[in-house]
């Protein structure tokens, strides 16, 4: 059985057939590793295949999953305890990466990748999107293996756009016009965007870049009082205040995707991952009416989606590093990246998207094409690049809520800038 599987694996790893059989998958046989995962479609997609890895390697994998907020807390608390009870975990490098790396909690992975005794020949790091590898590399070294690579895109209701003869927005101005035209028509709100404080930061980011703004100045001061920021937040909060659903300041992605799935939103922009919720008739009443479009261009004239990467990382305190690494490379190998892509998780390996199997089974080629195209230019810095990212997200989140509620945008941002600079002072 094991042998047969080994052969099957090898056959998949094109071009390295002979070598694959020589790689010792069983070098950590008999160990057990503990893995913390976010309740994410990737987790759902990979879980059924875990026994395959356990048979291949003889390593037992104990998985715990939590909803995102609890998940992030749990990982932090475990790492901070320094006990080494945790071996691997999911990480958004752009969120906690700086903090974890500076705290000495992340195992650098580059030496593992380059060690043929530890890494199977077919691993092929070059197969990952450069954006994914860039996102997962902090401080010059690889700290995670990318498992998911999404970009911000526009989701819209094809039927409504057709019915009211509206073109798919290509610019922010067209986006606002479409939201205005469709607002309160057929029981929908014009546009949905995240408005729940800190959670909105990552989705404000592409609008910020579209207005030509950025997070920090070269001397690491907050740039929140720049005109670009004021324009971006005025635009973002104006869309929500004028054409958004009631109560948008409590909405993050679950609320927005729910509303869209129930046919109460004309469009929204958010991570491409959410397609899987919207085109599934069991969870969506508009499954056959979802349109996908590239993130529109801002006043700068450029399209500025952000690229959000989830990775699998190893705890520096882990006591089973070999077993953990075997698990990580298996979980992100070509076959498994294809499997998760077939479950609608935007994979981070080019080979998965380019495979004949995916192309044959792809129900939404336009979604795939947009994702791939956007990855060429998407900005991976979707969070303020600071160590205390949670706190700065929260500071900014309060400015976002104030703006949506009609407060003075410039004042709110100036206050946020001052508070952020206080946080940054401590990081010097």
């Amino acid at each position: 059985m094991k042998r047969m599987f080994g052969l099957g694996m090898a056959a998949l790893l094109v071009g390295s057939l002979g070598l694959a059989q020589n790689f010792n998958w069983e070098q950590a046989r008999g160990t057990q590793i503990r893995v913390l995962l976010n309740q994410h479609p990737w987790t759902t997609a990979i879980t059924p295949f875990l026994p395959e890895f356990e048979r291949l390697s003889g390593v037992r994998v104990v998985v715990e999953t939590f909803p995102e907020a609890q998940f992030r807390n749990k990982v932090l608390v475990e790492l901070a305890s320094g006990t080494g009870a945790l071996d691997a975990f999911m990480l958004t490098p752009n969120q906690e990466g700086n903090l974890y790396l500076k705290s000495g909690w992340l195992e650098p992975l580059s030496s593992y990748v380059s060690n043929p005794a530890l890494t199977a020949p077919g691993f092929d790091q070059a197969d990952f999107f450069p954006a994914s590898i860039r996102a997962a590399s902090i401080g010059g070294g690889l700290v995670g293996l990318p498992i998911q690579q999404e970009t911000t895109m526009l989701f819209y209701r094809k039927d409504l756009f057709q019915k009211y003869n509206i073109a798919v927005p290509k610019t922010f101005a067209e986006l606002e016009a479409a939201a205005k035209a469709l607002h309160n028509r057929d029981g929908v709100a014009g546009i949905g965007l995240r408005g729940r404080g800190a959670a909105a930061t990552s989705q404000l980011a592409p609008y910020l870049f579209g207005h030509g703004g950025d997070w920090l100045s070269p001397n690491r001061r907050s740039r929140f009082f720049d005109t670009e920021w004021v324009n971006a937040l005025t635009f973002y909060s104006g869309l929500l205040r004028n054409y958004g659903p009631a109560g948008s300041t409590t909405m993050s992605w679950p609320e927005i995707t729910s509303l869209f799935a129930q046919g109460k939103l004309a469009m929204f922009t958010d991570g491409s991952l959410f397609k899987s919720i919207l085109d599934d008739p069991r969870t969506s009443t508009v499954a056959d009416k979802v349109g996908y479009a590239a993130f529109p261009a801002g006043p700068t004239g450029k399209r500025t989606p952000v690229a959000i990467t989830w990775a699998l990382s190893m705890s520096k305190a882990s006591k089973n590093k070999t077993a953990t690494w075997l698990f990580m490379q298996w979980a992100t190998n070509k076959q498994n990246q294809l499997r998760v892509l077939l479950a609608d998780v935007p994979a981070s390996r080019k080979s998965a998207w380019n495979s004949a199997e995916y192309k044959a089974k792809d129900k939404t080629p336009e979604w795939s094409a947009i994702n791939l195209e956007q990855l060429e230019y998407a900005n991976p810095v979707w969070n303020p690049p600071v160590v205390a990212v949670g706190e700065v997200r929260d500071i900014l989140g309060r400015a976002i809520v104030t703006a949506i509620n009609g407060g003075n945008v410039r004042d709110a941002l100036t206050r946020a800038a001052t508070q952020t600079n206080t946080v940054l002072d401590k990081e010097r």
Partner: protein
Amino acid sequence: MTQTSPQTKPERRSSFIDRNLRWLMPGPAVLLLFVLTILPLIFNLVLSTQDRFVSAAQQSSFVGLGNYLDILRDERFWNSVWQMTKFTLIAVPAQLVFGLLIAMLLNRQVPAQGPVRALILLPMISTPVAIALIWALMFNPQLGVLNYFLETLGLGRSLWVADERLVIPALALVDIWQWTPLVAIILLAGLQTMPEEPFEAARIDGASPWQLFWRVTWPLLQPTLFAALTLRLIDALKTFDIIEVITQGGPGIASETLNVYAFRAGFEFFRVGYAASLLTMLLLLVTAIAVGVNLLRRAR
């Protein structure tokens, strides 16, 4: 008091036990509670004098009372104290008023007395996470059943917990729903243990039911009312589960009470020292209020 004879050995041993029962019996429980509560509390106090991040990414340093000085200048702290106060000031008086009314409704011959009293207890014994989730579904501005009721009654839709001004009253409503039954049964017990004589005397004087209430019931009920008030004040100030599940302190920080802020600071911003100071402030406030209510009760 103990009459043990000095002849037999086992009895002498038990007389030692008996003489020291006053310490031996509560000893293990006290020791356990000390280890479980007072030691962490001391640890927490130590943390509160440090500018300590959960990790080594930022340096830890001793700052003395520095965190506390920062707190006094932290507008978010003052906001959280204000939200906590608002929440408590809405929830607790309403619980006392409705609790008293329900207690009086129950303090008669009631059909199906047993089942009625059992059903009334349900909100306070149900798992807070579960009921908070259900209320969150009911509050949903687009799909919640509460807005359906409002519309049916001809009132407009409400944003409920999505509205900055309504979020604290809405959360207080959940707290009122959950804890009024406790106040009601405490007051009911108070009503049922009242002596009969003052009522007889007042009736003979020809007092109306209204006068009877204000002249006899109300003064006699004072100790019980204060007990219920103290209990509810302490818990309302510390409310965590329902706020964390329903709003996580939002929109913005419009429903962020001190307890929720401290949780954020500690487990989301990882500023352990600062969170410890916030928790100390919360503890001081709760203690001060509990002591204050008790002083008020003695003054009466």
